[in-house]
């Protein structure tokens, strides 16, 4: 049984009052709140173990190095990577994608090569590739989204050619909450001889992922969207591919031997981790993974699915409200974007804030998707493990209040 009330007790921030009212936090697709276990891991690291890693011989350095590598191991286990060497620590999902673009893309792509993305990408899986269009003359192609916001796999099949070198798509849309069939997309990419990358920023926090089963070549994720601190994320890459890639950034830690005119690179994963890494946040990210594994990702998925279904039913019953994307929870989870007739999302968000409810308003870093589906700026409510049906009820009451304020 998923005990939301017990979970809520682990999150100190949920005790905060906003304008004198209980905080209803529904902006989880932007970032999640942190349980005391994660906060404690951070404080403990700085209070008891802080030292730089991979160099000192002293006790603290040994401890800090061990803790940092244990966190890497936890991530590897969490996504079923073959070895922790396949986990590269970075700042966030955006940096992970940039690493692939700059390191793999610059070495292995040339003029007229094709990279396939989708129309529902977050800017982080679009803008870096645009750099390579300008720099190398590669071509970007896009899997179209249907009116419901689902990827059109029939068209995707026709986009794949001998020139396709990479297919990179978002797993769960941060706007519509649609879950894309990554196993199928990856299989088709591999058949065409292309590599396959997944933007798992929204999926890794809420569903079990097995990179070997999905058979993706790269996977990018952020810690802060899954209970971890900000400033820590990782790139998963198949060992063989990472071995063949040149370093991303140069400096300390990523080298084996340095001479004035050349250097030899360190082995994986350090080749890609130049300079002192974000040690404490990596350790706390490990604590976040422990917390999630303890709850069970299948349970989290089910919990959010039920909540999404409940919220969809209530929102769809309001004539002033338009819900975007699939109208049932069958093909989506966790995220609902909507608008209220004649009220701008900013005004909705402001009125909800007054009621203690936090939602996001705007384009959610996915402007092309909004253009394609002709969406205006939208309101977005996104759920996580501590949200309840009561939170959804309060959202509905807040929306009613906005409608009343604007007398529509």
């Amino acid at each position: 049984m998923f005990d939301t009330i017990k979970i809520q007790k682990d999150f100190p921030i949920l005790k905060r009052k906003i304008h004198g009212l209980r905080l209803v936090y529904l902006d989880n697709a932007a970032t999640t709140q942190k349980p005391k276990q994660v906060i404690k891991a951070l404080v403990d690291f700085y209070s008891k173990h802080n030292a730089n890693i991979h160099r000192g011989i002293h006790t603290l350095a040994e401890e800090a190095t061990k803790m940092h590598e244990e966190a890497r191991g936890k991530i590897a286990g969490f996504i079923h990577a073959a070895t922790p060497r396949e986990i590269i620590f970075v700042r966030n999902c955006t940096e992970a994608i940039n690493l692939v673009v700059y390191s793999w893309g610059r070495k292995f792509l040339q003029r007229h090569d094709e990279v396939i993305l989708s129309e529902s990408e977050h800017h982080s899986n679009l803008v870096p590739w645009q750099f390579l269009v300008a720099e190398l003359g590669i071509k970007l192609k896009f899997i179209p989204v249907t009116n419901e916001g689902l990827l059109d796999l029939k068209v995707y099949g026709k986009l794949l050619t001998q020139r396709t070198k990479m297919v990179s798509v978002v797993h769960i849309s941060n706007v519509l909450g649609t879950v894309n069939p990554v196993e199928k997309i990856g299989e088709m990419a591999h058949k065409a001889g292309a590599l396959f990358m997944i933007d798992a920023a929204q999926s890794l926090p809420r569903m079990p992922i097995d990179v070997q089963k999905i058979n993706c070549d790269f996977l990018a994720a952020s810690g802060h969207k899954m209970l971890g601190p900000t400033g820590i994320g990782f790139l998963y890459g198949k060992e063989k591919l990472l071995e063949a890639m040149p370093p991303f950034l140069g400096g300390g830690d990523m080298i084996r031997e340095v001479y004035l005119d050349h250097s030899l690179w360190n082995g994986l994963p350090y080749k890609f981790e130049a300079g002192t890494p974000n040690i404490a946040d990596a350790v706390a990210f490990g604590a976040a993974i422990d917390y999630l594994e303890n709850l069970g990702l299948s349970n989290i998925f089910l919990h959010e699915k039920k909540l999404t279904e409940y919220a969809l039913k209530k929102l769809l019953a309001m004539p002033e409200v338009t819900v975007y994307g699939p109208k049932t929870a069958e093909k989506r989870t966790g995220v609902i974007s909507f608008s209220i007739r004649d009220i701008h999302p900013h005004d909705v968000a402001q009125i909800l804030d007054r009621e203690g409810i936090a939602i996001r308003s705007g384009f959610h870093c996915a402007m092309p998707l909004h253009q394609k589906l002709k969406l205006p700026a939208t309101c977005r409510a996104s759920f996580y493990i501590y949200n309840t049906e009561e939170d959804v009820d309060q959202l509905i009451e807040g929306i009613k209040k906005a409608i009343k304020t604007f007398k529509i």
Partner: protein
Amino acid sequence: MDNLYRENILDHYKNPRNFGKLQNPSASLKLYNSACGDEIEMQIQFRIHPPAGGSKFIIDDIRFSGQGCAISIASASMLTEKVKGKTIEKIQNLTTKDILKMLGVSLSPSRLKCAILPLEVLQKTAALAKEKENKV
């Protein structure tokens, strides 16, 4: 915040003044606030005062169009009323403070951007109009 959505702001939002397009504007400009998707276009028509060889540019007519939240639309609507008949110089001297006074509300930093966008567009449009005139 309690009075943010008071009657006059909602009135300007629902019935924006000077909303639409001019036949022959002296200058027009559209700007976006990419964070929230607001878009405001300003069009102005000015006359030179005194009519023969004068040096003052006076806003003769003004229209705005676009979409945005209650704050940005109300700000644009009130601003167009405020500047009609005023000189371009006077418009260039308007500040954030003047806009907040005009709206009669206090705003958080994130909402301030919504309130200020119309002024930014207007000032850039006015500069554009002057530049055009000087070229002729």
